[in-house]
């Protein structure tokens, strides 16, 4: 009996030792795995964009291997879903546009903190909001849009609502009275299709991977063009605002520091360890993650606060 107990004990030890050799660290702080049977990450997006679907699966596979626990992605087709999941603590991490983070910050303050954003090859860490019209439109500038219909993306969209409205005001255009009619398309790709179908005479769209001077390589226009759903030649950009601080990965600050460091390191290593995967998920060659703090988003946080105050005072018919 005693011999069997020893054999069992030694067998257990052997199994534990083998587990330790399987690429898993045994340092302190790793006990978070006993509390987290899975790690939850929120992202926004819809299934109509194959790049986003691929990105979700890529995140899951890569992070699951790095973390040693399954990764569950909480997908929401609207901005508010990710914002609320992050604010309420239903998820551990989330990717948010600057405006979304500003909304979360207004709700829960330092219970959520930014980890990193993307730094592009030329050093920029931002993207742009553009006003796009159909190529055959008589509209050549923002001024030409006076009295015409405009499509925004979503109230919680940074490039599709918050930032361009502030930029218009800085240029002397009051967006609540300047346009004939405004409404929300719901998402960037829907805004493109609504513009193509003549629902709006102009649409506010995100563009990235370049500057107004160099031209852009990413954004809803190019996503739909690559799918063969539109032809870029049918559209024209007449105005732009930016750069806007890029999307941020945030974390709930009450999560274990070891988990936060591990996720930050694993994600940051992706463009170097898996460069093909990095571009497959829609990132540009030469870009990389760079650490940021709340200060990086202060302008957006202030804009969100001003927009809320504006609405409370009766503005904002959109």
């Amino acid at each position, binding site marked *: 009996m005693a011999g069997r107990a020893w054999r069992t004990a030694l067998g257990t030890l052997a199994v534990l030792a083998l587990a330790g050799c399987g690429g898993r660290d045994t340092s302190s702080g790793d006990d978070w795995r006993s509390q987290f049977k899975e790690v939850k990450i929120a992202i926004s997006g819809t299934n109509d964009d194959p790049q986003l679907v691929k990105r979700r699966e890529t995140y899951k596979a890569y992070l699951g291997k790095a973390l040693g626990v399954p990764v569950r992605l909480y997908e929401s087709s609207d901005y508010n879903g990710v914002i609320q999941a992050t604010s309420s603590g239903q998820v551990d991490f989330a990717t948010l546009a600057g405006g979304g983070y500003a909304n979360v910050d207004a709700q829960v303050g330092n219970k959520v903190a930014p980890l990193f954003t993307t730094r*592009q*090859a*030329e*050093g920029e860490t931002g993207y742009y909001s553009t006003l796009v019209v159909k190529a055959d439109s008589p509209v050549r500038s923002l001024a030409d849009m006076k009295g015409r219909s405009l499509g925004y993306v979503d109230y919680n969209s940074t490039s599709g609502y918050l930032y361009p409205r502030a930029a218009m005001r800085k240029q002397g255009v009051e967006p609540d009275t300047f346009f004939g009619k405004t409404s929300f398309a719901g998402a960037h790709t829907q805004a493109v299709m609504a513009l193509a179908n003549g629902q709006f005479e102009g649409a506010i769209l995100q563009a990235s991977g370049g500057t107004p001077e160099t031209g852009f390589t990413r954004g809803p226009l190019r996503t739909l063009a690559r799918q063969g759903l539109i032809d870029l030649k049918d559209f024209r950009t007449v105005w732009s605002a930016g750069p806007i601080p890029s999307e941020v990965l945030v974390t709930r600050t009450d999560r274990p520091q070891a988990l936060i460091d591990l996720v930050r390191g*694993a994600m*940051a290593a992706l463009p170097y*360890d898996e460069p093909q995967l990095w571009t497959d998920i829609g990132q*540009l060659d030469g870009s990389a993650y760079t*650490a940021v703090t709340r200060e990086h988003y202060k302008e957006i946080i202030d804009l969100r606060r001003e927009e809320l105050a504006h609405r409370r005072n009766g503005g904002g018919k959109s």
Partner: protein
Amino acid sequence: MKRLTILAALAVMAGGAAAPPLRVAVQAAATAPCAKPVAGGPAGEKAYYDHLETRLGREVQRCAFASRAEAAAALAGGKVDMARLDPASYAPIQAQARAILTVRGAHDANRIPVIVAVRNADAAKDLAGLKGRTIGFGGASSAGLATPRAVLAERGLAAGSYRETVEPDGDTALDALRKGRLEAVAVHGAAWQRVCRMVSPKDPNPCGDLRVLVKARPRATEALVVRTDMPLDLRYRLIGIHLPLHLEAPAAFAYAAGVPGAAEFQPAEAEALTLATLK
């Protein structure tokens, strides 16, 4: 009861043992055994070790070596866990170790991939075939000019061994290559992507008329290096701790970066200290 006690003790030994210290190699006047750093060392040294120790939950020791070659040998031999190496000291141990972090200077681009390309019909098979010929660059920025120049130079095409033309941007350089005004281009990866990425299913390969001779990141001058058998999550945690170090612990960062004008730590590919090419 006795057996249960023994089993419990074995379980504690297997699963709850204190983590071994992380041993970091540093260059010093003389070799010294691994130990926790004491106050009175270089500015920021203790802050760096304390920061690592707090975040890793294990003791972090300083191991002094008189040269980088000695530190590299100790790393390969399992006597230390991380060392700052340069290409020369890394070369003898590259089968057992990999780079994980480099330092980016405040005015430097990321270590971006550079693409050197020619027209399909060009006779050049490699960079040597571009000696004495006209190479176009996409702009005068660090990413547009300095980084591509560095990639060419470290692969045998030093300044002066080719005729250099600086175009306003990558798009213009690629257009000039197609029109025959240039014989080759050296542009960064994003500039190449801007022109060559598919924008319509009708034209799945917009740069099918061009041929890539080399795609490579510039070789790092220094990197933090670990053994390839370091557990994956410890390697990622080290990256995750160093990435925001300049924001969270500036004094520790200044010490750990080791060079004036450093902006941040960046992750690195395993072969960052070699002349490896990318696919």
